[in-house]
């Protein structure tokens, strides 16, 4: 469809969540904004292929995700850069404790395989349905569901293995169940 003013506004309205998605994927604020810029350019360059009435955010997220994928293959991630850069993207500095907890969470997220990380973010943070997330990632709905589940259990293992003791003496039982059940 043609680039109407209304469509421009709709694209702009998606920018905040596109940035959040890009930062969650790349762990790097500067690269994330480059990704968003490239996404916007490509979206507008290909606006004729956008179906009016279809899900614009999902379409934009698909473009960004594909760009990130091809970019990722080219240069991998500059992990050592990510540490400070992410903090810089935060407007308000959280308290020290919250900040540590936050850094810990971000680091755990980085440890997830890319497939699982993007599925978890799309469903758990961006608020897409499993169906939309599947369309964005170009896979089956069941695949998204299992990626999200695996991401969640991996994160809880990374983050809450120690603190799980707070909940009671169930660790051995859980270990046994986990070991047998796979």
């Amino acid at each position, binding site marked *: 469809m*043609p*680039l109407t003013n209304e469509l*421009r506004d709709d*694209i*702009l309205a998606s*920018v*905040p*969540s596109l*940035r*959040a*998605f890009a*930062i*969650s994927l790349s762990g790097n604020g500067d690269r994330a*904004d480059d990704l*968003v*810029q*490239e996404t*916007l*350019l*490509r*979206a*507008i*360059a*290909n*606006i*004729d292929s956008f179906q009016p009435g279809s899900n614009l955010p999902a379409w934009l997220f698909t473009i960004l995700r594909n760009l990130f994928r091809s970019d990722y293959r080219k240069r991998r991630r500059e992990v050592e850069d990510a540490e400070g850069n992410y903090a810089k*993207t*935060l*407007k308000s500095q959280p308290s020290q404790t919250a900040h540590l*907890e*936050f850094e810990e*969470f*971000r680091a755990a*997220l980085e440890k997830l395989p890319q497939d699982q990380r993007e599925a*978890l*973010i799309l469903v*758990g*943070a*961006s608020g897409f349905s499993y169906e939309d997330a599947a369309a964005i990632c170009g896979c089956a709905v069941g695949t998204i569901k299992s990626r999200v589940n695996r991401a*969640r259990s991996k*994160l*809880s293992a990374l*983050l*809450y293995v120690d603190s*799980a003791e707070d*909940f009671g003496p*169930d660790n051995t*039982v*859980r270990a046994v*169940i986990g070991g047998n059940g796979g």
Partner: protein
Amino acid sequence: MKEVKKQGGLNAEIQSRIGHQLRAMYDDVVRQGVPDRFAELIRKLDGPEAAAAAVAGGDTDKNNGGD
């Protein structure tokens, strides 16, 4: 079976914490709104051709032959 149920409860607690942290991280960026550079970029582009040229040029600040 009781243990499994208990584990489910523990998971629910942890899963809600994970969900909360994930959204907190994400929403922190969302709340920053639209940075000027993007608002300007979208305003500046007349249409698909201009955007395609910018993609090909690699840098939107270069307006084909400078200012």
